[in-house]
């Protein structure tokens, strides 16, 4: 495993310029935003009072030269200080820390629903190329990648909440009449399990289903298509012909000899999807009033709270990079040809 640690270090070092660029870009974006943050924050009071405006500017560090501001920004970041959210009356870092698990829980739920369906339909279609089942799957996956996630969400709400009344009201993670579990991990489902709070568990599960399904459509669409095409590729490879000539049972042929090779590309796409899920999460959380990072983004947009938006941008960028690194490592574990 010596090669592995070396590989890991190498990859981590390679991340440095990307992350630095990420920070510079966000810093740049937050500084070309029209309008003086001090003015926005202070409102009417400071507009008429230049001394107060200067005081506020000094407090926010806006009177210093740009590179000093950047350095301060960096130092603050290093201390995980993303600024203060004056609208929520809370440090942004704290907001993000409490909201991140909420979003991650939703993303994981979407993956748990989407991934098996995606892989199964991918295999199903690949083994029936150009037959009706394949065409049907193709149409389905095409729909999956072509439907806007917020539209799916609203349709789901209309059907299952407004008309069928099966789903709970699309507001948050829990029904308001149920005592929430003490946040230990921040993941509501996990917390209720730990606490043994069955009522909360049931409520949280029933609340997460609709948004998770809404998010899973895109996952299913993309990963199913990738699985299908890579499995088709593998099936036409010479080593599959060898395995077939040997006369292995069909189960072994597919599960042991074809699938493992075929799932390698799917893995990369899954990672990208996982990272991209953050975008879908913003829309879904807005619709379901899901108190995660996405809703926070939406609220910040409506409040024009730039500091919070930039913090979300940085955090989601970090997450994205990390997930991709994870996928790279996994790839190496699954594919023996990857040398560390």
């Amino acid at each position: 495993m010596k090669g592995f640690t070396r590989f890991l270090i190498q990859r981590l070092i390679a991340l440095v310029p990307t992350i630095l660029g990420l920070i510079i870009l966000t810093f740049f974006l937050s500084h070309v935003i029209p309008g003086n943050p001090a003015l926005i924050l202070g409102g009417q009071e400071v507009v008429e009072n230049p001394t107060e405006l200067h005081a506020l500017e000094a407090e926010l560090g806006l009177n210093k030269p740009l590179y000093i501001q950047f350095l301060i920004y960096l130092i603050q970041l290093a201390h995980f200080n993303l600024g203060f959210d004056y609208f929520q009356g809370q440090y942004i870092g704290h907001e993000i820390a409490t909201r991140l698990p909420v979003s991650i829980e939703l993303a994981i739920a979407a993956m748990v629903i989407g991934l098996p369906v995606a892989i199964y339909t991918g295999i199903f279609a690949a083994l029936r190329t150009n037959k009706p089942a394949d065409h049907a799957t193709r149409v389905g996956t095409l729909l999956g990648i072509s439907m806007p996630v917020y539209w799916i969400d609203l349709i789901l709400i209309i059907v299952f909440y407004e008309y069928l009344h099966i789903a709970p009201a699309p507001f948050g993670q829990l029904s308001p009449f149920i005592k929430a579990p003490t946040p230990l991990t921040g993941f509501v489902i996990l917390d209720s399990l730990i606490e043994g709070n069955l009522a909360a568990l049931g409520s949280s599960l029933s609340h997460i289903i609709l948004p998770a399904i809404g998010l899973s459509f895109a996952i299913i669409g993309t990963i199913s298509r990738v699985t299908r095409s890579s499995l088709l590729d593998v099936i036409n490879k010479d080593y599959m012909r060898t395995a077939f000539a040997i006369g292995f049972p069909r189960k072994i042929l597919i599960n042991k000899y074809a699938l493992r090779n075929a799932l390698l590309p799917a893995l990369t796409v899954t990672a990208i999807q996982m990272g991209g899920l953050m975008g879908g999460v913003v829309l879904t959380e807005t619709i379901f009033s899901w108190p995660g990072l996405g809703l926070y983004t939406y609220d910040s947009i409506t409040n024009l709270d730039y500091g919070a938006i930039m913090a979300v941008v940085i955090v989601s960028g970090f997450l994205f990079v990390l997930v991709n690194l994870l996928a790279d490592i996994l790839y190496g574990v699954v594919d023996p040809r990857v040398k560390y």
Partner: protein
Amino acid sequence: MEEQINKPEAIGKLEHNYEDYVLYVDDLSIEYTLGKTRIFAVSHVTFGIRTNESIGIVGESGCGKSTLAMAIAHILPPNARVTSGRVYFKGKVVVSPEMGASYSIRYDRKERKIENQLSIVRWKGISVIFQGALDSLNPVHKVGTQLSDIFIYRESMHPEEAEARSRQLLAAVGLEDWVYDLYPHQLSGGMKQRVVIAMAISLNPALIIADEPTTSLDVITQYRIMEELLRLRKTFGVALVSISHDIALISRLSDRLMVMYAGILVEKLPSNSFDVAQHPYTHLLVNSIPNLEEDIAEVQPIRGSPPRLISPIVGCPFFERCDYAVMSCRDESAAVLRQTQPFHEVACSVLPIFASASVKAQKFRKRGAVENNVSDQAIVLEASGLTRIFEKRTGIREIATGESNKITAVSRVDLTVRSGETVALVGETGSGKTTLSRMLGLLDVPTNGLVKIMGEPINLKKRKEIAAFRKIVQTIFQDPFQSINPRFPIASTVAEPLSVNRRTTSDKSSSMNDRFQQHGFGSVLSQAENHEVMVLKALQEVELTPPEDYVEKYPHQLSGGQRQRVSIARGLIVDPKILIADEPISMLDVSLRAGILNLLRKLKQDFGISVLYITHDVASARYLSDRIYVMYKGEIVETGETEDLIRKSAHPYTIALLLASIGIEGSISEKLGERIFSQSESTDNKGCLFAPRCQFAKDICSAEKPELLQVSQSHSSRCHFAQDIQGMGLTEIKAKKEAS
């Protein structure tokens, strides 16, 4: 269940006693559907194999031999269809129009039923040796897993027992035990091929099909695999169908030979010798290949190229390329196999009438003496101390670990090409010969050393010098399918050097153009016309006649041989002095190779162009060249005038190459010992690079690097014991062969 299937075949038994044969192929025809086109890959093939017999099928690529082999194993792709005939394995039908010959993982109920019937035939009855160097092994599973899976899932064996058996098998094919735990990508080509062989014999099949078992391996490994196959046949007593385009290999491997052309069997020979061949195609095929046993003055090219098989062929498929063709060859029955002698069938209605001896006389023999000695001519191209070291990505990783990943591809090579001379550079894959040729063609920058043209070293920083060089030296690449841009018509491709070098090629005609230049379009047009004339001339020179037919064609409309000619025409259009030909024939169909070889020869004779011919094939090097350089692991190990070098080889590696090319079983082991087959790398550069594989290696060999020293006039060898071993190769073997 089995009896049920066998019953309908009882009727068939009345005609043939299929059960006498391990395998009987009866009137088999196979067709592919590609979009809307149909390809008639195999047409009415009939033959049988008895127990313990070995049959070889020879043919060029696209002749249907692989289709035939894969059909027998019932593993054709789904777009293949059996249109007539049956294949019987021990009297039991395995392939028929109803059962098909395809495999598909996506099978339906009907196909599943067929699979169930086949399950006792698959691998237990018929197994296949695939081309191991390609990806016939699954890249994500260990070699051991893939082997023991056969026992686990086919024999329901316990995993531990399966592992023990697999390890035995690996040992049986001469592989070390640790191979069991490796992944295919960690093995060399030869090792992979052995694993594939081990898999094929695992369930003791009655019949093994070997599909190009040695292609894409280097010569010495090829030889080794062939020996391995012969040994296994003896020990296991299986019937063997081997398929190859390599005539020499197949005749050594088989008891009987069959020749396939355009989907039909054109000749079934009674023994493993081509000497009694009667079909014109067989003759031409054998005579079109230079070999080392006989010193052939001129190989016979076969004109034209094989038919495309997109429509059924009526009559003899060889009609258009045959010198003996008469009108009756177009008759429907012309290509039916007829018995001419006991066990000898020929699908030709004309030639067997002539005495076979008269055809054989076409083989010219050289007079032995070395012809046109040109060593006093001026040196045109010279490599002086050329070295190329590849450094694998110098990233953070290397800096962090302080480890340098250097590979010396070419090491201090001196090479000269004289005016009007053909020089061959012989080496196997990975010997650095292509890197050397790229440096000589100024396509790669040497780490060290100089390229000299007419005695003048080229300054790689001066564009003018490079441009001037590119006019004098042209490179022909190995792969004619990729060296020509598929988007351009032939005329544009051939004319490209002219338009590219417009300024530097200001010869008489374009200086004439200069006067017209003031008149605007007129001069452009006349220059274009001028180019057209030159293109036509160049196409004429490479024997693409009539050239008018070719100018507007696109590459995909041409055969490989024609494309290679286009590529040569493109080189010739700027009147080069030197042609660097990097394996120009290795990607071509066998019947097209001789044409290109003879063309290269003609260029030298008619235009006085010097040719640097780079190849892995000693026989064609001998045929073409005046002098030979032998390369091993980036170094020139031996050089000399062709006949001298071949008859009096003074380096063990050259001897091994020659013996492997001739390929008499046991000859290499006898002469050079088993060590020659080891792939061990010598890690320190202190001693002789070949020492780990050399039986004659003494202490000095690993301690001191031998220099390239003269053994006789214009013959040098990089071996401490050059004098001792000189001449123990070819001459002795030949004498031995003639005596026996």
